């Protein structure tokens, strides 16, 4: 299977090139290939007239290709300044002997480096005086992103690759990043920008390339791309023409407020059920200094399908993880059918009938499909029933029946997703948490997955669905919550939200 397949991409010197595409489209893989983390299978890459093909990562960096990472990779225990100084490595003369002698010019250089580091942090919009001495890992999320950029700038790169610099940021932070990018570009830096936030990408990029399933499906000015039907299809999923006509436009930030109002007006007050099986109240979760979920409240009644939608980093997955006991919330309550989820052990939660099918499936690649299924019945006491259900499941997903003796690691993405869902079912759930079940799947697979979900629901299982294919999710959802940067932005019935522009904004940025 090809993560990236025959992609040609030219970045014009001094320009900002955008690279977009739905999750799993292969954007990050492409970057990893360019920067030498993943070996080329075929093809070549040049930076101006330097060959990059086949060089080790550190050489490529030395040639002036700086990058940031999608999941921030700072040296967490070094201070912010030190992080930036590490970035100067490749263009810094080897001063080992000088240090040993603590020669004066070493001290001078050291001071010079500190000053430069401070300058770079200022460029990246950090206040060195304030954050300079703090350990990088303890900085707020936004600052960590900026620091990573400052560190990248320390290489004095010819090309700067930003991998989702704005992920999980709130509008004002995003605005800051946008200005930063534009400023860097004005100083003549060439930038390759990867981000989910259309509004950002469309706003700053001179040209935008679109990847889907490892292939380039469009390349051109933001206008051309944003009106390209293939792109819209790739993004909002395989909906009917009606949705396709409402293209993801580059609505300016100034429009945000207006849309906010429009959204509130457009959506009826959330018709939350009185008697709920799951009741989450003011739930807040934070990773260190990052507040991933801020006082989110939601309820699910028995028999419902409730969708939880929102852009990347909005906190959807975090909420699910908190519910299934993988992480402990900072505050708030979450009760499932009398069981306090904020304190119960993960194993107890499963036994109580709340089963979480995680993002990225997390199937056990080293065990066979059958073993995966049998293990899924771990929490159950009714062995016989479990056995029959395994058979039933394999009938429902014939592909699993065929492959039962194969190592799960060899399954394709779609098959793996089926396995993950089947595993969830075998846990005998009364409430099933599905996280991004269609992630990176081909359209026909997506159809199958949703068919399966519908079936499961018809069998009377309550479902809380996190899905970035909003149209598909809303289509089968009784109700939905729209999440933005850890907050519940609005809620309402599926149909209602389908037509709500705020949803589009939540997805395509703002």
């Amino acid at each position, binding site marked *: 299977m090809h993560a990236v397949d025959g992609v040609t991409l030219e970045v014009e010197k001094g320009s900002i090139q955008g690279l977009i595409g739905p999750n799993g489209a292969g954007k990050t893989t492409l970057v990893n290939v360019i920067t030498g983390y993943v070996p080329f299978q075929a093809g070549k890459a040049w930076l101006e007239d330097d060959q990059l093909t086949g060089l080790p990562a550190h050489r490529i960096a030395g040639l002036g290709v700086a990058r940031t990472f999608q999941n921030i990779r700072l040296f967490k225990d070094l201070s912010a300044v030190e992080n930036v100084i590490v970035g100067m490595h490749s263009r810094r003369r080897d001063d080992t002997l000088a240090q040993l002698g603590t020669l004066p010019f070493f001290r001078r250089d050291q001071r010079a480096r500190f000053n430069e580091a401070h300058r770079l942090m200022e460029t990246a919009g950090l206040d060195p005086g304030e954050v300079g001495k703090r350990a990088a890992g303890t900085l707020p999320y936004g600052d960590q992103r900026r620091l990573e950029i400052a560190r990248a700038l320390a290489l004095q790169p010819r090309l700067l690759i930003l991998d989702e610099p704005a992920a999980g940021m709130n509008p004002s932070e995003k605005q800051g990043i946008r200005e930063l990018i534009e400023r860097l570009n004005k100083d003549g830096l060439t930038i390759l920008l990867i981000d989910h936030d259309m509004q950002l990408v469309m706003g700053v990029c001179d040209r935008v390339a679109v990847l889907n399933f490892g292939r380039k499906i469009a390349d051109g000015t933001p206008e051309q791309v944003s009106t390209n039907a293939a792109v819209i299809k790739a993004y909002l999923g395989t909906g009917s023409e009606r949705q396709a006509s409402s293209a993801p436009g580059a609505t300016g930030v100034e429009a945000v407020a207006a849309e906010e109002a429009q959204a509130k007006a457009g959506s009826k007050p959330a018709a939350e059920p009185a008697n709920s099986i799951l009741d989450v109240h003011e739930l807040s979760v934070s990773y260190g200094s990052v507040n991933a979920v801020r006082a989110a409240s939601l309820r699910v009644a028995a028999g419902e399908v409730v969708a939880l939608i929102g852009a990347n980093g909005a906190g959807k997955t975090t909420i699910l993880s908190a519910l*299934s*006991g*993988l992480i402990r919330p900072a505050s708030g309550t979450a009760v499932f059918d009398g069981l306090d989820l904020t304190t119960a*052990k*993960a*194993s107890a*939660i*499963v*036994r109580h009938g709340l*089963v*979480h*099918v*995680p993002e990225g499936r*997390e*199937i*056990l*690649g*080293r*065990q066979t499909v059958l*073993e995966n299924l*049998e*293990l*899924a019945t*771990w*929490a159950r006491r009714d062995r016989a029933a479990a056995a029959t259900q395994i058979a039933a499941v394999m009938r429902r997903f014939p592909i699993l029946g065929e492959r039962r003796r194969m190592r799960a690691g060899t399954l394709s993405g779609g098959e793996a997703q089926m396995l993950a869902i089947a*595993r969830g079912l075998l*846990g005998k759930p009364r409430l099933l948490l599905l996280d991004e079940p269609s992630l990176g799947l081909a359209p026909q697979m997506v159809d199958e997955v949703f068919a399966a979900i519908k079936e499961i629901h018809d069998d009377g299982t309550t479902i809380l669905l996190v899905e970035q294919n909003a149209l598909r999710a809303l289509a089968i959802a009784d109700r939905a919550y729209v999440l933005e940067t850890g907050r519940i932005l609005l809620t309402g019935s599926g149909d209602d939200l389908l037509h709500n522009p705020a949803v589009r904004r939540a997805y395509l940025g703002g």
Partner: protein
Amino acid sequence: MGQQILNAIFIGSIYALFAVGYTLVFGVLDILNLAHSAVFTLGAAVTYTLVVNHGQSFWLACVVGILVAALMGLVIEYVCLRPLRRRRAPPIAALISTIGLALIIIAAIEQGRPGTLFAWLWVDGANPVTMPPGTFPNPTWHVAGLTLEGSKLAVIPISVVLMLVLGYVMRFTQVGRALRAVAENPRAARLMGIDVDRMIALTLIISSALGGLAGILFGVALGDISPYIGRDSVEVRGLAVIVLGGMGSIPGAVLGGYLLGLIEVLAVVLLGSNVRAGVAFAALFLMLVLRPQGFFGAQLREKV
């Protein structure tokens, strides 16, 4: 030569039995449990003390010895490992804490003399002792120039059967699957309702019980029980074995055990002198440089 092959198979079984427990813990936790060889010694010591100083029957003593070893497994988990897991400490910290426990166990046995704190555990100090003859049936046959000694012969089927059972459990039972799940992806395991902590505790119990049993078999069959049998016979060799077989691989550990036994005896027969322990390591060193994943270590990549 035939006799030498027997020697090799015998000591190989001991190595294998010991290493299986060793590698099991590494496979599940990615941690080297350096207290394992101390548990080996403890098993033998407890059994001897029960028989000789407390006049218990040999068979009862063996059972208790294994139980004590298993219990020590729990101690390792609750004292050395779990607190560090809770604090997300690096694996190297666990290395140190298990060293500490090993130190305690060995010192306790070493200092056990009449009238000391640990007299209940051991009274012979640093002295090596042997099971008094007659405490257990030990028929010896002389067949075709070979000496077949009951206690040594018994070791072979016992360890083979146990290792087969363990292999079966790991491969075909729900618990085995759960253990492998914890080893591969604890997060996924938790999502399936598996209590990871309990599984880890179970791992250490099994591992330590096997280690203790290996110690008992070694001490009884070789007529050598002392505070140092663990250190001298298996502590470092155990590492060699589990690497030869590929870290975390049970069949690998078994094969590695027998292989090491064979290499060593051949070294004695062919090269003479005291190159025994060294030869194995020369081989090990080469193999790590040439084929780091060992024979069965397909999963090395994930492990590192």
